Each structure stands twice: as structure tokens, then as C-alpha cells.
């Protein structure tokens, strides 16, 4: 396979530009839907660092997404802080929580990690639910304001969509660069063979922590965006269902491919919104969709181009690239 001469940066910017242009003639509803889709897609890309690269499947990632949202909401609504500063507090706060918990969480692997993260997510969810008037309890915190960027007022649907795109482009660009960097390669090493990495002198624990925190920070960025977009955070912004949705997006997209989880994260959200407005059977439809995906496309959406290429040159015998199934057990 010849290597394309396109830098990741250019590609991500180009995608952003395409999405911006494509949305030009859309009405407020579609820009709104795309905004939320890009937010979930971006969060899934971040989680892919942890799941696809470091091989650590988490059922508690929603916690970092939601914590940043709560930070933004508490900052603006309770402490009267400027929205930008509040978003910063949320993102930094969420990252710090990740940094504090990471050394503990990375001690365990596989299902135990999944369960520890599930428990962690439940504890955070409990804090949000039990926070009384501080967190609004079950009802959450409505009325989170959208900021303006200098003269650029972000309260309109289109303006906020473009802003979200801008942020997504920046965040995903950073993730793509990170994934392709020496550290990203090291994470693949940890996923494939932890013992070997240690024998090569790599500090495996540190690498796991890095993956954990990077994924959390990216999640936090999109969590803050989500809170600003919806004008609302609640326990549903960080519960295990959200965590499951993000994890499923990574798997449906194809763990370790980055673009697959983005498409799946965004696409699944749009599909869910569409089906939920159309039929009461939408959980059934989504469930069947997952089942069909896993049976027909076990490598996820990311394996589509490869299958397509294989089909095209099926006449010629060619070495099959090994699938990057990030299995861990």
C-alpha cells in the first residue's frame, strides 16, 4: 500500500471545512443534530486512545465527560464565573480527577479494569445524584449559558456548530498526532504485549496512565461542549449508559482506527435520534443494528475500506494485512 502524502493536520482541517460547508444550507435542527453528533464522535475518538490503543476497555468514561460539564455548570450558575473560565475549570478538574484515579485504575486489567471503571462511574454518578442543591440532584443543572468568543456570539445554533467544529478539529487533530507519535506507538506495544514493553525498558504503568488521562481530557473537552450546547447537565450526562454508548461507538467504529469511532459516535447518535422520533421500537432497532454490525463487520466500520480493497483485487492473491483487533484477555 503506497503511503498517501497528506499530513494528518491538513486532513483534519479539511474535514472540518467540509463539515462546515456541508452544513451551510442546513436549518437549525440539522446543525443542532450535527453539533451533538460531532461532540459524541469526538468523545469516542478520545476513548479510542484508551480502548483501541492501550487496550483498556472502560465502562466509566462518561464520568470524565460529565464532570467537565458539571464544572462548567457549577462555575457559571453557582459561582458566577465567566463561561470560558468555568469550562476551563471543568476540563482541568476532570483531568485532575483522572490523574488522581489513574494510578489506581491502571493496576488492574481486562474485565477487572472494566468493572473498576464501572464502579468509579457509579460513584461519580452517585455524587452528582446526591449532590443536593449543589448539583441539582436528579434534575441536574439547567440554564448553562453558552459563551461568546469576543465579538462572535455563540448562542445561535449555527455559530455554536462552527465553534464545536473548530474545537473538534483542534482536539481530534491533537489526538491523531498523539496516536501516530512515539507515545501512540508505545501504547500499541502495551496493548499487544505488556511484558515485552517492560523488557524493552518502557514504563508500562506510566504509559497506561498517560492513555487514561489523555482519553479523559479529550472526553472532558467534549463534555464541556455538550453541556454548553444543551444548556444542561444532569446525572444522565455521566452515567454508565453514556459510558456504554461511548464504548460501543469505539467498537462499532473499529477500535484503534480513530476515524471509525468518530463516524460511529456521530452516526449512532444521529440514528438514535432519528429512530427515537420515529418508532417506539428504537432500542430494538439499535440492538439489532449492533448485532448485525458485529456479525457482518466484526472489525467495525474501520474495516470497510480494507474489505472493499480486498474485494476489488480479489482476483490477485495479496497478503492480507492483519486485522488490528485489539483483543485483551
Amino acid at each position: 500500500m503506497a503511503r498517501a502524502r497528506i499530513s494528518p493536520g491538513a486532513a483534519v482541517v479539511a474535514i472540518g471545512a467540509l463539515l462546515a460547508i456541508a452544513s451551510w444550507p442546513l436549518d437549525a435542527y440539522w446543525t443542532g443534530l450535527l453539533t451533538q453528533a460531532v461532540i459524541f464522535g469526538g468523545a469516542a475518538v478520545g476513548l479510542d486512545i484508551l480502548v483501541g490503543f492501550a487496550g483498556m476497555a472502560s465502562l466509566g468514561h462518561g464520568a470524565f465527560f460529565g464532570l467537565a460539564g458539571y464544572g462548567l455548570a457549577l462555575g457559571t450558575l453557582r459561582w458566577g464565573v465567566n463561561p470560558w473560565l468555568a469550562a476551563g475549570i471543568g476540563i482541568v478538574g476532570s483531568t485532575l480527577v483522572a490523574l488522581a484515579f489513574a494510578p489506581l485504575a491502571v493496576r488492574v486489567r481486562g474485565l477487572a479494569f472494566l468493572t473498576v471503571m464501572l464502579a468509579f462511574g457509579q460513584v461519580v454518578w452517585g455524587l452528582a445524584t446526591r449532590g443536593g442543591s449543589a448539583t441539582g440532584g436528579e434534575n441536574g443543572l439547567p440554564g448553562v449559558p453558552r459563551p461568546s468568543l469576543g465579538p462572535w456570539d455563540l448562542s445561535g445554533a449555527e455559530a455554536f456548530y462552527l465553534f464545536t467544529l473548530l474545537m473538534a478539529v483542534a482536539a481530534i487533530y491533537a489526538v491523531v498526532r498523539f496516536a501516530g507519535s512515539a507515545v501512540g506507538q508505545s501504547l500499541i506495544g502495551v496493548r499487544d504485549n505488556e511484558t515485552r514493553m517492560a523488557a524493552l525498558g518502557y514504563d508500562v504503568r506510566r504509559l497506561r496512565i498517560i492513555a487514561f488521562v489523555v482519553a479523559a481530557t479529550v472526553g472532558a473537552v467534549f463534555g464541556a461542549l455538550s453541556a454548553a450546547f444543551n444548556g444542561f447537565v444532569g446525572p444522565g450526562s455521566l452515567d454508565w449508559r453514556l459510558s456504554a454508548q461511548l464504548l460501543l461507538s469505539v467498537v462499532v467504529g473499529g477500535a484503534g482506527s480513530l476515524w471509525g469511532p468518530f463516524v460511529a459516535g456521530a452516526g449512532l447518535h444521529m440514528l438514535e435520534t432519528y429512530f427515537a422520533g420515529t418508532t417506539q421500537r428504537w432500542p430494538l432497532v439499535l440492538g439489532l443494528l449492533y448485532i448485525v454490525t458485529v456479525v457482518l463487520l466484526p472489525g467495525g466500520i474501520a474495516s470497510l475500506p480494507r474489505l472493499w480493497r480486498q474485494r476489488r483485487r480479489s482476483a490477485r492473491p495479496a497478503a492480507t494485512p492483519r486485522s488490528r483487533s485489539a483483543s485483551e484477555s
Partner: protein
Amino acid sequence: MRRVLTFALAALLLAGGAVGSLQAAAQTPSAASGEPIRIGVLDPTTGSFAVFGEQVNDGIRLYFDGVGDQIGDRPVELIFADSAGDPQQTLEQARRLVGQEHVDLLMGTVNSAVAPPLAEFAGQQQIPLVLTVAGARDVTGENRNPYVFRTGLANGQQDRVLGWYTAAKLGKTRAATFAWDFLVGEERVAGFTETFTAAGGEIVAQQKPPLGTTDYGPFIGQVDPSSIDVVYAFFAGPGALAFVQQMHQFGLLPNLELVAPDYFTAGVLDQMGSDAVGTVQAGGYTAAIDSPENAAFKEAYAAAHEGAPGVYVAEGYIGAQVVADAIARAGSAEAQPLLDALAAADLTTAAGPLTFDDRGQAVRTVYVTRVEATADGVAQTIVETVPEVGQSWTPAS
């Protein structure tokens, strides 16, 4: 680098899909005078609130069927969406209803947690919102949003009547409260406690199981039955169902009096069966109401469904009636005239007279009922009727 290319391809597909759907969006007509009035109905039809959301939808459908889907000379179109009881999904579907379906107003929703963000959204979009069941107090509180009206009762509204009734009329003055540990539970217990203590009652114990708990063993054991003479409970659906049964198993019922807001037995009274007998409840509707309006409602319901309508169906029906009445009087589905008409509402529903206070909260009759055994099961009978109950009702007022 290959990854990057595929990334671009994926994004293009996504954008392409969006553009493709454009046409669908563009074809949707926007509401104008003479055109159909479009009403977006947001109730949970999946998840744990599904059964209640369905009933509210039934009530709304029933009313508009009854008027031939017509208000004045304008046809009515109902567009239903699933809120799933989840704020995030509610907002998404609300955006879809407003942005893509171009509805003139929103109504519905069951659980309180979705009401505040939905109210916020309605304010931003400047679209009228009529809440049917969700009782979150904030929505009709001090910082009330002028686009929001609630035809159902606010959390605690009926509990205030219940607190007074329990102490003053039943003569039970030592209570233990059991309510799920969430805002709705707090608001209800607070309403009950205020009028109950004002009438000489005392709260002996407060138990707060986590939201959704169905095994009350750990909580029932905390209360000494000899120290109380009445139990106030607020749970809903499966929680309420399990609670009455376990209170019997642990021997607290039927020896103690059980009082609760109407949503306690709503939808599960038949399942509770004999366990529910004796339960005293306060609420905005009961099938036992004896009025021509309720008779008409029950008759309409019986034509399409089995059995008697419950409070969720009734609240859907009443909400639809209030909306239709306001649109008819406003002669328009434009936001401002509609809001003005809603504020001036004064009509008689299946549950009695209904007006709004200056915060958009319905002022209605509250009925105190007792569950009694009948030949073919159990039914509520009215033991007290309290007219013009507002959200801050006290016996003196």
C-alpha cells in the same frame, strides 16, 4: 496516512448524509394561518416510564379524537416523540420537533427530571410548553419561564392537602415518611410535612431509599412500628408495588394507616390488589369523580380501551383540553396570543375547574380517596373534596 484518508472519506459520508436529508427538511411546511396546528408531544415510551408515557399519550389522543382533530377551522396534527425519561434525549427530540417538525407548541412529559431543561429550551426557542404530569416545582417557581404552563399538579401540591387531611381529619399524628431519595421525593415530603405538622402532626422517622429501590427490607426495619400510627409513602410504579407488598410481609400493614399522593397507585392499583385496600391518597383525578365532564371522559375512554382511565390518561386528556381551549380562544397558534390565552384559562375539566396562578401552575380541585375492596377487585372512593388548591395551598386559604 491511510488512516487520515479514510477519516476524510468518513467525514464526507457523514456530511453527504446530512445534505441528503436536507430535502426532507426543506419539504416540511412551516405553520401559517389556515394551516394545520402542529403539536409536539414528548412523553417517554421506552425505559422505566414507558407505561406512564403511553397513558398520557392515550389521553392526549383521546381528547383530540373526540374533537375530530380540529380546533375551530384548523386541523390538529399530533407529532409524538419518545423522551425516554432522559433529559438529554428529551432535548434532542424537542429540537427535532421544533426544528424539523416545526411544531407550534410542545406538551407532555412524565418524570420531573426532564422538565427543567425542557422548560429552559422552550424559553430559548420561545415556544409554548404545556407540562402534563412532570411536577418539578422550579418550573412554576420564582424563576418561572413565561413560556411554560403546567396543567397537572406540582410536586407537593396534593401532598399538602394530604398532610392536613391526615392530621386534622384522620387524626393520625405520628408519621414515618418513606420516599425515594430524589428531588421529587423531597418536594413531596416537604409539602406533606408542612401542613401535617401545622395541623399538629409529628414526623417521627424519615426513610430515603435510593431512587428506584424496590427492596425496602433495609428501610422498613429501621422504623419502630409502635412509635407511629401512619406511614406516608411516595414511590411510583414498581417501587410502590413492591412497597405495599413488603409492608404487609413485614407486618406493618394493614395495622398502620398508609397515606400517599395519587401517583402511588397510578397504573399499578390492579397489581396491588387487596394489598392496597385502605390506602388514603390525595390527587388531581380519580375515576370516582361524579360529574358530567368525567362521565363523558370515561365514556370516551371506554369506547377505545378496557377498564377505567387512570390519572395519567386523565392528565393527558386534561392537558389536551386546556391546549385546545386556549388555541380556540386565541384564534391562533402564535406563541404570544397562545400564552395570553393560557394564562386566562378558566374551564371545567374531567377533574373539575382549572385556572392558572401567575406562575403558570394549574389551580385545581384535589380529591382525597380511599382504596376499597369491590366485587371485582379494588377501587377508589372519594372521602374529601378540596377546591381551588394552588401550589402553596394551606387549610386557612
